[in-house]
Structure formats: C-alpha cells, structure tokens
C-alpha cells in the first residue's frame, strides 16, 4: 500500500467525514445489519486510502465510495449463505437506494436504541453518525481506546442479537427522546470540560450541535430537535465568556456579555422560533432553550426578565418534574419575587429526600436567609452546605461566604 501524503490523507478524511454516515446508512439498508455495514464501510475507507493517493481522488468521490460499498455489500451477501435471495435481489436493485434520508434516520434511531446502555449509545452514535474513529472518541471521553472499541463492538453485537430492525420506528414520538438524550449527553460531555484537553472536548460539543442540526434537517416537523439545537447553541454561545484567563469559572451574573457568540445566538434563537412555530406542545429541551433565550436577550444580568423565567420553570416542572428544576425555580423566584417567596420555594425543595445531600440547596437557602437579614442562620446553612460540597474549590467558596455572612 502506498503511504498517502499528509495532504491526500487529510482530504480523504474530510471526504469520509462528509460521506460516512450516509454510506453506513445505505449499507445498513442493504445488509440489514449495522455492524456488517460499518465493517464494509471501513473496508471502503481503506480501499480509498490505498487507491486514491496513486490513482488520484475520483471527480465524484462520494459516488465512488457508495458504488464501492455497494459492490462489497453484494459480495458479502453472496458469500453469506444464511441470507435469502430476496435480500440479494433488493441489494442489486439500484432503484431501492434512493431514500438516503430515511436510511440516515433509521441509522440514528438504531444507534440510540434503548436496548443499548447509554454509554454505548453515545460511542456508537459518534462512530456511525459522526464518522469519528475509536481513538478520537476515546480521547474525547478521556477513556482508553480499547474501552471504546469494546463498547462499540459489544453494542453492535447486542443490536444483532436483539434483532433490532433497521428502520425509523413507527412510534417516532416515543423513541425520539432517547435520540435527543444521546445528542445532549455528547454535548454536555464537551461543554462541561474546562481544563486539560478542553479543546478536544469542545469539538465534542460542536459535533453534538452538528448532529442536532442534522436531526432538524431530517425531522423538520418535530419541535423538540429544534429546541435541543437552540438549547445547545445558546449554552455554547457563552463558551468564551465563562472562564477567566486563569481557568476559574465565571458565573452568569459576572459574564461579559459582549463576549457571547452572536452567530450561535442568532442560529439558536432562530431554531427556538422554529420549534414554537410548529404549534405543538413544547418538550423539555424547548422550554429549557426558552429559559436560556431569556438570559440571552437580557443586556445585563440585572435586566433579566425573572418573571418569564419563573413561568418557564413552572412549565418545565409540569412536563419534566425534577427537584433540580425546582431548585432552579427557587433561584428565579428569589430574583423575581424576593426572599420570602423564595424561602417557601426552597423549603419545598429541601423537603425532597433526593435533595437531602445536595450542597446547592444549602447554598441557595443560605443566600435567601442572608437577604432576609438572618445572618446567623445563613452562616450555619452555608457551613452545612460546605460539608456536602463535591470538591475543595466549592467547599472553600461556601466557607468564605459563611464567614462573610456574620458581621
């Protein structure tokens, strides 16, 4: 095999990134087996790496990859005697290969299938839909490469054993949340990164946004994918503003809003408009995006429309009740209606046993007590919260606030 020069190799990788998801999708349609499709696609990639450097990149590289893939799939089906002739007939019929969007959707739903554990869904989605290599996925998730390799091969085996059909499910509405969850998991994995290999992981957040936009292109009548895209883009618009030069996090009230990313804001707000314009009940991602949009539209933190945020948290609490949502709502109530109303709200959260060991409940309650002029109670609350804090930095911060509370 001629070793491709860096330039050609990078070009082939770029073409691969554009084509691989649709290639694997159409091969899955032919073979009815996502695992086999992915292996054939890898063969095609290797063939391109071998042939293109010497013979030149074909004028229509996408068509080359698809034709080569189809031939390899047909060879494989012929070899495999367990398959029936009907499938071979279908594979040989070129008129059946025109529904590329349907295949791509089916591939997404298969990669995010509920029979798979969550961590396998994210790895498989990045591999099949994002065109990422095992090494790239491993680097992004900060785990050893063999771990990801095993996760992916086990996932492919599970899909085969469970006889998961390659199709867009009829109960699309039921299955869509699992797909959106995978995309958002990939996003938060990248978004949460603040140190070390942060830039690699930021790519992960970009990949999630790309996957989300892909979904909106494939399902233009569904509001939630638009809501998810809006949520991710509005959150990502604050990337640049949320860390100080020395790496310490800058919280929303203190962020320099001129550093927010206008392009992402514009696209995110437009996506949220698309979600609401469909006039269907909004899901949790759309409502969270609407909350993010209220912050985005406020020129300064003090100018935030807190009444709107409280109303949106009320709506979110209806469709996706959780104590964390209630906690966030209590913070919004503090800004909108003052400390007395907020104390009532936070005490409801505190009564939830799931939140008993959550340091932020105490942190928020401490602030509320301080605003009510109950300094001693506030200090006590903040000290208790410090004991529950997950890391030293937050513990120190809470103890400092506790000390500052006392005159």
């Amino acid at each position, binding site marked *: 095999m001629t070793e491709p020069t860096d330039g050609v190799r990078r*070009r082939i990788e770029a073409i691969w990134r*554009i084509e691989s998801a649709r290639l694997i999708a159409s091969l899955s349609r032919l073979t009815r087996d996502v695992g086999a499709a992915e292996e054939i696609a890898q063969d095609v990639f290797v063939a391109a790496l071998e042939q293109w450097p010497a013979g030149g990149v074909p004028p229509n590289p996408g068509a080359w990859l698809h034709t080569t893939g189809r031939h390899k799939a047909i060879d494989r089906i012929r070899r495999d005697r367990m398959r029936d002739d009907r499938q071979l007939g279908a594979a040989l019929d070129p008129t059946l290969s025109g529904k590329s969007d349907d295949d791509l959707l089916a591939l997404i739903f298969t990669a995010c299938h509920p029979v798979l554990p969550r961590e396998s869904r994210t790895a498989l989605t990045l591999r099949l839909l994002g065109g990422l290599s095992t090494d790239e996925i491993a680097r992004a998730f900060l785990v050893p490469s063999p771990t990801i390799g095993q996760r992916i091969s086990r996932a492919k085996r599970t899909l085969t054993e469970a006889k998961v059909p390659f199709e867009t499910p009829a109960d699309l509405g039921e299955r869509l949340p699992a797909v959106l969850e995978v995309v958002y998991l990939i996003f938060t994995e990248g978004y949460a990164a603040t140190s070390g290999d942060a830039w690699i992981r930021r790519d992960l957040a*970009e990949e999630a946004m790309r996957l989300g*936009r892909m979904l909106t292109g494939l399902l233009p009548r569904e509001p939630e994918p638009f809501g998810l895209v809006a949520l991710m883009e509005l959150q990502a618009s604050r990337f640049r503003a949320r860390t100080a*030069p020395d790496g310490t996090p800058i919280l929303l009230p203190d962020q320099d809003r*001129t550093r927010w990313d206008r*392009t992402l804001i514009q696209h995110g707000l437009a996506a949220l408009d698309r979600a609401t314009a469909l006039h269907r009940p909004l899901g949790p991602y759309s409502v969270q995006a609407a909350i993010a949009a209220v912050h985005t539209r406020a020129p300064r933190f003090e100018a935030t429309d807190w009444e709107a945020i409280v109303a949106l948290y009320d709506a979110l609490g209806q469709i996706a009740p959780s104590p964390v949502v209630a906690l966030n709502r209590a913070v919004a109530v503090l800004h909108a209606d003052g400390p007395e109303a907020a104390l009532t709200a936070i005490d409801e959260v505190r009564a939830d046993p799931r939140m008993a060991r959550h340091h932020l409940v105490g942190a928020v309650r401490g602030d509320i007590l301080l605003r009510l002029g109950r300094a001693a109670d506030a200090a006590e609350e903040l000290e208790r919260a410090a004991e529950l804090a997950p890391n030293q930095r937050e513990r120190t911060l809470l103890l400092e606030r506790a000390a500052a509370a006392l005159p």
Partner: protein
Amino acid sequence: MRVMVMIKGRGADEVRIEPTTEMLAEMGRYNEELVKAGIMLGGDGLKPSSAGAKVVFAASGDTSVVDGPFTESKEIIAGYWIWQVSSMEEAIEWAKRCPHDAYYGAEQVLELRPFFEMDDFGDAMTPELRAKEEELARQVQSRQGS
C-alpha cells in the same frame, strides 16, 4: 472550527448573469444538503454592486465615496455562508460540491476563510492582554448603556 465562504464574481459579469430557475433550484438543493449535514450556521445573498457604495480612505488621507456598480472590480461578493466544520479540508470538499454554471463563460469563485478563535492567539494573547481586552469591552458596553 468556523469558516466563512464568500461567493465572488467579476463586476463586469454581474449585469450579464441572471440566475436561471434551474440554477436556483440546484442551489436550493445544495443548501438543503448543507443543512442536513448540520454544518450551516448562517448565510445570505447580497444585492448587486449597483446598490452598493465604497468608502475609500486614500493614502493621502482624503476620504471619498464611490457609488456602485463596481464594473472594474475583479472580485465582488455576491453572498456568503458560515459553516461549522471539523477542518479546512472538509470545508473545501463541501465548497467543491457547490453548483456552478459554465454556460456564461464567467469565472465564479468561492473564497474560504476560517474565523479567528481565541486559541489561535496562543501565547501572544497573555492573560494580561486578555484581561485588558475584557476591560475595554466592559467600558464600551457601559458607555453604550449610559
């Protein structure tokens, strides 16, 4: 990474070229492909240079205004896209797929330019410089607010 793709043509060709229905339909399909690939962040078309103007700061220090059309100009921007891609190579591959029409005998150019990202400044952007920049931005903002 983010790339701006500028659609350029010669000023002399601007009046001759009227996009045909087929060309517009092909462009529509291409745009749809970009959306479905998830790389499209934005973009727009610009009116012909006959609707435009130039403000020219001469080397002598004089300032003058030149009204369009800019028939002499070799590169007039007719529109642009903003794409989010994983590499410059990926952007180039997408650009190569853009529909074009040799019928007019006119040269059409797509110019691809990556945006600066904070990391690009590397060591040149010291924490002090960055803090200074932030302070400036704050001052500008507070002045606008007052």
